[in-house]
């Protein structure tokens, strides 16, 4: 059939491999969910069997466990410790080079041949996260060139959630669980196959190449049912009413002291968060010092060094760092980028080694105005 944006097609269960093959054939590096070291991470996928077939995860604050499902779903889980940020905004990238010559220093950028990624299995909250990063890293005047180019080339095959983890709160953030925009294709997994929604011309072109039939009404209904299950399972809430002012009016709330007693300032929450974007540049030179690379690495408002100035730290204690993180994420992000910095994926809750839950922190501040 002639697929156009917004049409819904059908991909039989084992045809997924054809999609994967086609993407590789078109020189995409296909990245998708795989099991590694006891978690579902994002890595190269060449074969549909490498996906976490029949696995799911149990998540709660400071706890993540893989568990078996009783069916053969490939996408029967939510989000793991990785996010696509790892690929679009790599944790380590060379942003410039300097070489000492007879005329003194020669400076050059280090243009990368941006890889063309095809992301397989992007969730609704992750689509939202990518949209947030578009705003934080691409601007009219200055953009992150690495992000921008990788992003431009990336193809996105989203997957609708059919279940929710106890840490998910996308419904509070209006980011999910349904994939509504920002994808080239969006799948909903059923036992015998996938309904495929087309989100872009690029997506349409791919389904055309695969010659997918359109999805029948029954499959569509079943897909609706599956997606509704995800909505029903979401328990966690973050009350976002006037959240910007709530936080900014409570910068001296005693709750910051309490959370500082527990927070390790270990940076885990910011590393797993799909929207956090702080980075630092490190000079890496050979011993002679004649050749230098400027390496940009992920950094975090929880690292002390980030606020180093004039011999001391502006945010010298854990309290001020946690406050910086939460107020930036949930409040000042609105001032800067006209959006929340949080998409409700819940990663920071699961992967905080001491189980600090931002929704509880906000609720505590809301409950007890000073």
């Amino acid at each position, binding site marked *: 059939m002639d697929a156009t944006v917004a049409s819904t097609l059908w991909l039989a269960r084992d045809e997924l491999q054809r999609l994967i093959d086609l993407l590789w054939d078109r020189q995409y590096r296909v990245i998708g969910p795989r099991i590694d070291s006891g978690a579902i991470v994002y890595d190269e996928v060449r074969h549909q069997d490498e996906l976490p077939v029949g696995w799911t995860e149990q998540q709660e604050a400071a706890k993540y466990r893989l568990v078996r499902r009783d069916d053969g779903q490939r996408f029967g889980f939510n989000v793991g410790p990785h996010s696509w940020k790892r690929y679009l905004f790599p944790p380590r990238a060379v942003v410039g080079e300097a070489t000492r010559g007879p005329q003194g220093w020669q400076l050059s950028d280090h243009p990368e041949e941006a890889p063309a990624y095809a992301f397989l299995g992007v969730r609704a909250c992750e689509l939202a996260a990518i949209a947030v990063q578009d705003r934080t890293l691409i601007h009219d005047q200055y953009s992150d060139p690495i992000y921008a180019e990788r992003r431009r080339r990336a193809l996105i095959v989203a997957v609708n959630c059919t279940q929710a983890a106890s840490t998910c709160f996308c419904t509070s953030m209006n980011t999910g669980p349904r994939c509504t925009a920002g994808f080239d294709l969006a799948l909903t997994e059923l036992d015998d196959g996938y309904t495929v929604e087309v989100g872009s011309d690029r997506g349409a072109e791919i389904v055309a190449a695969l010659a997918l039939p359109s999805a029948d009404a029954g499959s569509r209904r079943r897909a609706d049912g599956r997606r509704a299950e995800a909505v029903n399972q979401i328990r966690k809430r973050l009350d976002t009413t006037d959240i910007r002012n709530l936080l900014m009016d409570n910068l001296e709330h005693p709750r910051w002291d309490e959370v500082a*007693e527990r927070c390790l300032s270990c940076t885990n929450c910011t590393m797993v968060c799909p929207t956090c974007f702080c980075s630092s540049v490190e000079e890496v030179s050979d011993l002679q010092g004649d050749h230098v690379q400027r390496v940009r690495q992920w950094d975090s408002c929880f690292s002390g060094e980030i606020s180093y100035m004039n011999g001391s730290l502006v945010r010298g204690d854990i309290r001020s760092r946690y406050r910086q993180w939460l107020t930036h994420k949930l409040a000042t992000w609105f001032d800067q980028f006209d959006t929340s910095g949080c998409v409700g994926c819940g990663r920071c809750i699961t992967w905080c080694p001491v189980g600090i839950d931002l929704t509880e922190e906000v609720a505590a501040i809301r409950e007890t105005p000073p």
Partner: protein
Amino acid sequence: MESRPTLAVFKFASCDGCQLTLLSLEDDLLALASRLHVAHFLEATSRIEPGPYDIALVEGSVSTPRDIERIRQIRRDSRYLITIGACATAGGIQALRNWADSEEYLRAVYARPEYIETLATSTAIADHVTVDFELRGCPIDKRQLLDVIGSLLAGRRPRIPNHEVCLDCKRKGTVCVMVAHGTPCLGPVTHSGCDALCPAHDRGCYGCFGPSRQPNLVSLSDQLRRDGMPPREIVQAFRGINAYSPEFRGEGDRLEAESDRSDEADRSGEADRSGEAGRSGEADR
């Protein structure tokens, strides 16, 4: 006289691993040797020159009365004194003796303890003389060592990141062993430098780079306890390679005192309820 800065390497109680790192610079070793004049490095050369030295790298901990004299002399002889490794910066694994009866220790190891002259303690170099820079690790990291030497050669104070192991771990994309496997890990309170090796090998960090800049040890202990680790084992986790660093020492001692108190309470509780049946000994473990 040569104009290249002079380098001297000294060893105290240690395993040699950190100075070996210098010899393991491989590609950079000869380059380094051309920029520095190696004036004293027993492991590498028989040519031994008297001080003063521009840069002294000191490995090992102070554990005999003679060590104290030696380190003072080295301090007098050296412009920059850089300590390398957990032994030199925190007393090393051998600082475990600081909690033990060293007489008994001697008997455990040596058949004839009377021959051995030893301090009851193993302590960091900085406990005895002023140290210009401490490079952490058991062993130290090659790149960091190069960085330190490079900075000194350029006349700058070395600057080594002092965040937690977690930051490196997540940059690498390693799955958190604590959250995903329930494996106790000191990464959240340990100084960076190893590029988060242990979690990348599916095991918890045992703190060989010592405490990070502002470790929240109490919170980590609480979490480990919540995860089911008995307090006595947490104490031992802190009393490892960097046992005698002030931070790990403090938290280990605090927890130990706490569990001593609760054992005490348990015992008196037990006495009170001596008539009670069926109480399992499990809680004491």
